[in-house]
């Protein structure tokens, strides 16, 4: 067993891919310096500045360079430093990368990975704290990956780089420096397979990214009251492992979806819409969504802490779906 962190696991996975395949290149602002979070630290020293390329602050064009290089047979990994700035690259992502295979009748492939990171909790303010992954899930032709642990980050990165289509890899800044034990080289994790972190028969909690640990904390607290929650991390939003979720709900008959994004048009809406349809007769209560309120992210510490969904919110939601006494509506 060795100790790693989420960001270290990402970096190591990049290094392994670069080692294994010359076509893998890394592009982004200050990536050859390691970036502000060390996600690419050491890659330039090891693989050279030809393959690990600093770029100007030109998110749109740099994303497009990755599309072109991918079309020419390279496997570019392009970093958008904060998901908030994916706004500047969305034209390239949605109109070029996602549609190239389709519009060319299958002639073009765009095997790129766009790495970015989102989420709040670091007093970054409204423009450096968003969770915009659900936008990406609305674009046919993109895959969207959002790991919650170091080992999944590593394993999914390996698969994302190998994928023939554009994959947006959404990391979470608040997870970057959490320690995790791993045993040898993390195995590839297939895109589109959920992970069940905890089994339980009373209630299913689907949570993404940072919310997984909060869901697990809630599950522990619920267990103290004799309620066994199953906690599932979809790990990839597109394609979504619907089967694992609906199979769980068919056993537990209750579902909570927990995400850090604002609930309105968040990914929880899609899961709720799918599950109420696919498992209508199994559900004993409405699907509860736990997410951020419909405001920008405040920077003042108490407000930001209150803004983020926490274990308490999950416990409350559980009490509501299970109609337990003391549930707050």
């Amino acid at each position: 067993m060795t100790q790693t962190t989420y960001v270290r696991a990402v970096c190591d996975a990049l290094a392994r891919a670069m080692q294994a395949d010359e076509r893998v290149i890394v592009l982004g602002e200050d990536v050859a310096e390691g970036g502000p979070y060390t996600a690419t630290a050491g890659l330039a020293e090891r693989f050279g500045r030809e393959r690990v390329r600093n770029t100007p602050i030109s998110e749109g064009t740099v994303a497009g360079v990755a599309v072109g290089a991918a079309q020419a047979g390279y496997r570019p990994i392009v970093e958008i430093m904060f998901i908030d700035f994916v706004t500047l690259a969305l034209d390239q992502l949605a109109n070029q990368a996602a549609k190239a295979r389709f519009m060319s009748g299958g002639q073009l492939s765009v095997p790129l990975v766009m790495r970015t990171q989102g989420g709040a909790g670091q007093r970054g303010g409204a423009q450096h704290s968003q969770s915009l992954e659900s936008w990406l899930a609305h674009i046919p032709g993109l895959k969207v990956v959002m790991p919650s642990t170091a080992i999944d980050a590593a394993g999914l990165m390996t698969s994302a780089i190998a994928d023939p289509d554009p994959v947006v890899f959404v990391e979470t800044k608040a997870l970057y420096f959490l320690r995790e034990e791993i045993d040898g080289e993390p195995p590839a994790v297939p895109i589109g397979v959920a992970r069940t972190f905890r089994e339980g028969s009373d209630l299913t909690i689907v949570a993404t990214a940072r919310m997984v640990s909060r869901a697990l904390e809630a599950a522990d607290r619920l267990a103290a009251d004799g309620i066994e929650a199953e906690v599932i991390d979809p790990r990839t939003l597109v394609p979504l492992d619907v089967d694992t979720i609906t199979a769980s709900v068919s056993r537990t008959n209750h579902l909570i979806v927990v995400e850090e994004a604002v609930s309105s048009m968040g990914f929880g809406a899609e899961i709720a819409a799918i599950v109420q349809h696919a498992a209508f007769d199994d559900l004993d209560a409405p699907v509860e969504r736990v997410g951020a309120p419909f405001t920008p992210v405040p920077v003042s510490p108490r407000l930001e802490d209150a803004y983020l969904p926490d274990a308490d919110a999950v416990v409350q939601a559980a009490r509501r779906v299970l109609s337990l006494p003391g549930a707050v509506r």
Partner: protein
Amino acid sequence: MTRVDRQPDVAAPDSASGTAGLSAADGLDLLGTMWRIRALEERVGQLKRADEVYGLVHLSIGGEGVAAAVCRQLLASDAVYSGHRAHGHALAQGAPSDRLMAELMGRDTGLCRGLGGSMHLVDLEHGFFGATGVVGGNLPLALGTALAAQLRGGTDVTVSFFGDGAVQTGAFHESINLATLWKLPLVFVCENNGMAEFTPRSAHTTVARVSDVVAPYGLERATVSGSDVGAVWDAFGAFKHAARGGEGPFLLECLTHRRRGHYEGDADSYREADEAEWERQDPIARLTERGIADGWLTPQTRDSLEAQARAEIDAATEFARRSPYPPPELPAQLTCAQDGAA
């Protein structure tokens, strides 16, 4: 329908103006290519009015010389990107007219199996990486293929076609900056027709010449008349030759005329047609004149080039008409790779 053979790569001429570098064979080839584009575009206009060609259709009549003089100096191993007015570029780069026409008519035999259409032509086999409907949208992609060529080594070049309207997009500047920073083997080819949709260049910028816009970046650049095919040929030839040697980027601005409305169906009521001037600037007419003056063209050959081109397009149209529409399951099959292989 025979595919048009690609021109063998030619050495760059010494002179960068006139038709100094243009041999008789080149002249005939270019004239033939322009006629093929003209015949295609005229037919596409008719078919659009007859509702046999679909969607937003932008013709390049009057601008054939640029497509011909640039693409006929390229190889299938090069990479070409274009924008919304791309039929001529695709054809000159080697896309077969039958499959091109079939694409415009939404058929399964089309270059993109009917999933792309007029603004999204792609023919990878001939290095035509493709058109885009987003103005400026493909500029960054061209840097990507040029970067790939640079990393791979070798002599492949990328050409990026765009209009003067695209010069005011942020993507243009980001792309020029990054291409010069990375010294990419890439030739930016701007077709400056002085119009973007319904407004003249003066409504878009104070800088009339695109080659002036990029001056600070220190890249080599030139402005030529797009009606003077020889001038385009020479200027592009020099840039391409240097780019094959690993230099770059370069910018070639070709001053052209848009003889039709912005798109087919556009009433074009916002400007005065200057038919006489356009006629005078017609690249086909000008090269024809030159060929006859220089002795490499006879009126008979001229006529047969046109006739051949029109016959080819007739055949392409028939091919497309005979072709089936794509099967209903195609969109779902081509959204992502099915077999997991790139």
